[in-house]
């Protein structure tokens, strides 16, 4: 993945994107390893560079708590928007499905950079808002589809 392909950096010039990415450090994850746990402090935002990351939530299956897939993230996509939104706690668990590499951008460094470069902060924040809005719309539709099923089961 090149820096310009990161969805979080859409609309930035290559120089601006490179400056944001200069804040990041690369993290290698072996297949099956955990990037962050549900409820952990969200101090960094991540961008998938290589591999595949699953986002899961615990669900009771046959009276056992099991991590159930909610979403997957592939190269270019961002993970951990909770780092940008109070109370800064991860609301999902992230695990590498393959050997993966992510770029970790610390929130403190990012917000400090945005304060000195508000034009970059505006674009990145708008991209993050767009991604959150898309996710909200998808999950609204998924929720309604499940509700529809519940109603059909109750009335059949």
């Amino acid at each position: 993945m090149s820096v310009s392909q990161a969805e979080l950096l859409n609309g930035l010039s290559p120089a601006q994107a490179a400056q944001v990415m200069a804040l990041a450090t690369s993290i290698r994850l072996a297949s099956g390893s955990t990037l962050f746990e549900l409820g952990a402090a969200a101090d960094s935002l991540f961008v998938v560079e290589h591999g595949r990351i699953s986002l899961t939530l615990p669900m009771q299956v046959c009276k056992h708590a099991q991590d159930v897939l909610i979403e997957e993230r592939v190269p270019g996509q961002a993970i951990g928007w909770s780092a940008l939104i109070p109370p800064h706690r991860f609301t999902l668990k992230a695990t590498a499905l393959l050997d993966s590499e992510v770029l970790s951008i610390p929130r403190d460094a990012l917000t400090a950079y945005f304060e000195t470069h508000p034009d970059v902060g505006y674009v990145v924040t708008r991209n993050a808002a767009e991604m959150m809005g898309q996710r909200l719309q998808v999950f609204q539709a998924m929720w309604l589809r499940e509700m529809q099923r519940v109603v059909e089961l109750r009335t059949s």
Partner: protein
Amino acid sequence: MFLSVMTLSLIGVAVAALLFAAATRGATPAPPTPDERLLRLPSHFFADDRATHARPVIPIEVLLLQIERHVRLEQAAAESFRARPTAETLQSATTSPLSGSQMLN
């Protein structure tokens, strides 16, 4: 006359009862054997109660795979709705084994 007829009737009934008891003494009742024809019939008109007692147990690994497939299919359907928001795309069916129509079977 009436009394003699009645007495003879009672004696006849008593003798018949004694003979019946003597004939059936020592014979154990045979266990009821299910009628094969009845076993082949559905046990209930609307539902087969044998099916409810012997509900197949799905291994947890299979169930987890079904849930994962369901989530992927549902997410794809929801993405389709987001791209083209209509009532039809919102209600579009998937082949998920956990969808309502499958669960009812």
